[in-house]
C-alpha cells in the first residue's frame, strides 16, 4: 500500500501527525502523475492503433514514434484562448471539466495497480466506489448539456442521461453477480477467488454484459452516441475550448483504462499467473483488453440512440436479471 509506504518512510524523521499529512501529499502527487500520464500514453496508443487499422502511420514526427505528439497537443491546448459563449451558465460550465476529470482520477486512487499491495488508498468495497464514480459522470454530462445553453449540447445531454439509465443497471447486475460468486466487493478478494479458474470461464454471459455496458457507460465508441461528432458536432463538449476541452481527454482515457483493468480483475484472474511476477501478468492482460476495447471504436459504426436504448432495456437488462438469478443459484448450491 503506497500510503503506508510513504508513512513508514516519513515516520523515521517526522512526528506521526506530520508523517500522516506527508503520506497524504505523497499519495496525491503520485496519483496525479499517474492520472496525467494515462491520456498521454493511451492517446498515443489509440492514435497508432487507429493508424494501423486505417492504413496510415499515425503520429511520426514528434519524438520517437510520435510519442511526444500528445505532449505537444497538451502544450497547444494550454496555449489556446478560452472562447466562451455569453449565455452559458458560468458555474456549471466551469465545474464540469474539473468534476469529470477529478471523478475519473479518483478511480485510479482506489483501484489496485497490478498487485495486492500496489494501491494508492486502500478502502474496503473499492469495487462499489469505482462503480459509483463510473455511474456519476454521465449525470455530469447531462449537466454539461444544460450549462452550455446550446441546442446540440442539450440534445447530447439528454442522450447521455437516457443511455446511462439504460445501461447502468446492467452494469450493476453484472457487478453483483461477480460479488455473489466471490462473496466480496473488494477487488483483491475477487481476484484471489479466481485463483484456480477465471470468472470468464464461469460467467461468459456476465462478461459480455459487462463489456457492452461498460462501453456504453464510459461513452466510448461505438457507443459515443452523446458525443456523435457527425450529427451533434461534439455534443456536450461543443462550447468547450482550450485546456477545458483537454480535461475531457483525461476523463475519457482514464475511464477506458479503469474499465479495462476492471475486466481483467473481475473476469481474467487479475494478477494470477505463473512464472512471471503478478504485476507483469496483470499489465499484459490489461494491455490486451485495452487494445481490444480501443479497436472496437475503429471497426464499428455508432448505433442510433433509440436503438441503443432498445438494446439496453429490451435485451441486456432482462438478460442480466436472469443471469443474476442463475448466478445466485450457482452460488447457493
Amino acid at each position: 500500500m503506497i500510503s503506508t509506504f510513504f508513512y513508514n518512510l516519513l515516520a523515521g524523521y517526522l512526528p506521526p501527525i506530520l508523517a500522516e499529512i506527508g503520506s497524504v501529499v505523497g499519495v496525491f502527487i503520485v496519483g496525479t502523475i499517474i492520472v496525467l500520464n494515462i491520456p498521454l500514453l493511451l492517446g498515443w496508443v489509440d492514435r497508432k492503433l487507429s493508424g494501423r487499422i486505417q492504413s496510415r502511420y499515425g503520429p511520426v514526427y514528434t519524438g520517437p514514434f510520435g510519442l511526444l505528439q500528445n505532449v505537444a497537443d497538451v502544450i497547444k491546448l494550454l496555449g489556446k484562448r478560452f472562447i466562451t459563449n455569453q449565455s452559458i451558465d458560468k458555474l456549471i460550465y466551469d465545474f464540469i471539466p474539473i468534476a469529470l476529470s477529478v471523478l475519473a482520477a479518483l478511480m485510479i486512487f482506489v483501484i489496485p495497480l497490478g498487485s495486492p499491495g500496489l494501491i494508492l488508498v486502500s478502502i474496503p468495497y473499492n469495487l462499489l466506489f469505482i462503480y459509483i464514480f463510473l455511474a456519476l459522470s454521465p449525470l455530469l454530462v447531462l449537466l454539461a448539456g444544460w450549462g452550455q445553453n446550446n441546442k446540440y449540447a442539450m440534445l447530447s445531454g439528454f442522450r447521455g442521461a437516457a443511455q446511462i439509465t439504460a445501461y447502468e443497471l446492467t452494469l450493476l447486475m453484472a457487478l453483483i453477480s461477480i460479488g455473489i460468486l466471490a462473496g466480496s466487493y473488494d477487488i483483491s478478494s475477487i481476484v484471489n477467488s479466481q485463483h484456480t479458474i477465471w470468472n470468464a470461464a464461469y460467467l461468459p454471459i456476465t462478461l459480455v454484459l459487462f463489456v457492452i455496458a461498460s462501453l456504453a457507460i464510459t461513452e466510448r465508441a461505438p457507443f459515443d452516441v452523446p458525443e456523435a461528432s457527425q450529427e451533434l458536432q461534439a455534443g456536450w463538449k461543443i462550447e468547450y475550448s482550450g485546456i477545458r476541452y483537454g480535461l475531457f481527454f483525461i476523463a475519457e482515457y482514464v475511464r477506458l483504462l479503469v474499465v479495462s483493468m476492471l475486466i481483467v480483475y473481475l473476469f481474467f484472474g487479475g494478477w494470477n499467473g505463473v512464472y512471471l511476477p503478478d504485476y507483469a501478468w496483470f499489465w499484459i492482460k490489461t494491455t490486451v483488453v485495452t487494445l481490444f476495447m480501443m479497436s472496437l471504436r475503429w471497426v464499428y459504426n455508432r448505433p442510433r440512440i433509440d436503438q441503443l436504448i432498445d438494446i439496453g432495456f429490451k435485451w441486456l437488462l432482462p438478460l442480466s436479471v436472469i443471469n443474476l438469478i442463475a448466478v445466485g443459484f450457482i452460488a447457493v448450491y
Partner: protein
Amino acid sequence: MRSGTGLGLISNFRFMEKERNRITINIGPVHPSTHGVLKFKVDISGDTMKKIEPEIGFVHRGVEKMAEMKYYSNFMPIADKLDYIAALNWEVLYASVVEKALKVVIPPRAVYLRTMMCELQRIMSHLLFIGHSGEDLGNTTLFMWGFRERELLMDIIEEVSGGRLAPMYISLGGMYYDLPPGLIPKLASTLDIIEKRVKNEYRALSYENGLFKMRTVGVGIIEANLAIKYGLTGPNARASGIKCDLRKNAPYLAYDKLDFDIITADAGDAYARFVVRVNEILESIKIVRQIIKDLPSGEIKVKVPWIFTIPPSYTFVRQETPRGEAAMYMVTDGGQKPYRLKIRAPSLYAVQAMSEIFVGGKVADIVAILGSLDPTPGEVDR
C-alpha cells in the same frame, strides 16, 4: 432557445411536444456531415424530425452566367468544377453538347477513352460515397479506406492528365493526350486491387456488418413513386426499383457496344442505396476491363479551333453521371459564346426530395440519409 441559466431549459423540455415549442436546429451550412455546404432547418420534437427545410445556394458561383461570358472552349475548366467529385463526367457532358451543336464526330479511340474516364470517375465517386457513408455513421475507418482506394485511381488519372480533382482531360473534339505507355497494365492491376477490397474488406466493415445494417436498413425509405415525383435519377432511383440508366436506356459514347447490367434494388432505403453503389463499382470495373480489351487505336482528337462560332440552334444532351441524369441545354445565337447554357444537376432533385424523406426520422438519421443520397453542393448550387 432562451438565454439565461442552463437550468431554465427544463421548461423547454416540457413544452417540446407542442408544435409551437419544437426545437429548431440548424444542420449546416458548416457541419462535418453535409458533404460541403448545405443547410437544413430541422424542427425536432425529442429526437424525432417533424419538419425539414433544405436551403441551398451557399456555393453558388453563377456558372450559367459565366458560360454566357466565355468562349466555348474556355468554359471547360468551369464544367470541371460543377461536381468536383465527378469532374470528368461533366467535362464529357459539356464536350458532347458543344460537339453535337458543332456536328463534330470524334474518333472511335476518343469515344472509348471518354467512356473509360467516365467509368473510372464513377468508381472514384462511389468510393468516396462509401467512405463518407462510413464517416457519417461514425466509422472513420471506412472513410480512410474509401479514400485509400480512390487514391489509387487518382494516381492513374494524374498520370493520364496531370490533374487530380479537376483533370481537364477532355478537349472539344477528343482528348488532350493519349494514354501514357505502360498505363494499361497498371490500371488493370489497380482494378484487381479495388475489386478485391470492395468485395472482402468493405463487406466486413459495411454491408454485412450488423451495426451498419442496423443504422441503414429501413432508414430514409424512398418509394418508387416518391422518386418519380421528385425526379430522382441515378443510383437513388435505381435503389427504389426503377430501372433507369441512360447508359442502357439511351446509350451514348461507347456504351451500346459494352456488356453490363443496370443495378437495381427494391427496398429504397439507405442500405439499398449503399449496396447499389457498391455493385455499380463492380459493374464499372467490368466495363473498364472490356474497354481495355477492345480499345481501338488511331487518332484521339479532331481539330476544333479554340475560338469558333455555332449557328443559332438548341442543343440538348443528357448523360449518366455518378449522381444521376445530368443534362445541358445550350442555346446558341451564332456568336462565339453560348447564348444560354442551362445545367441540370441531378443532386438538386435529391436535395429537394429530402424535405419529404427526412420526416419521421431521428436526428441521427439526418446524416445517414443525407450521406446515402450523395449530393454534391457544387452541382446543386452551380
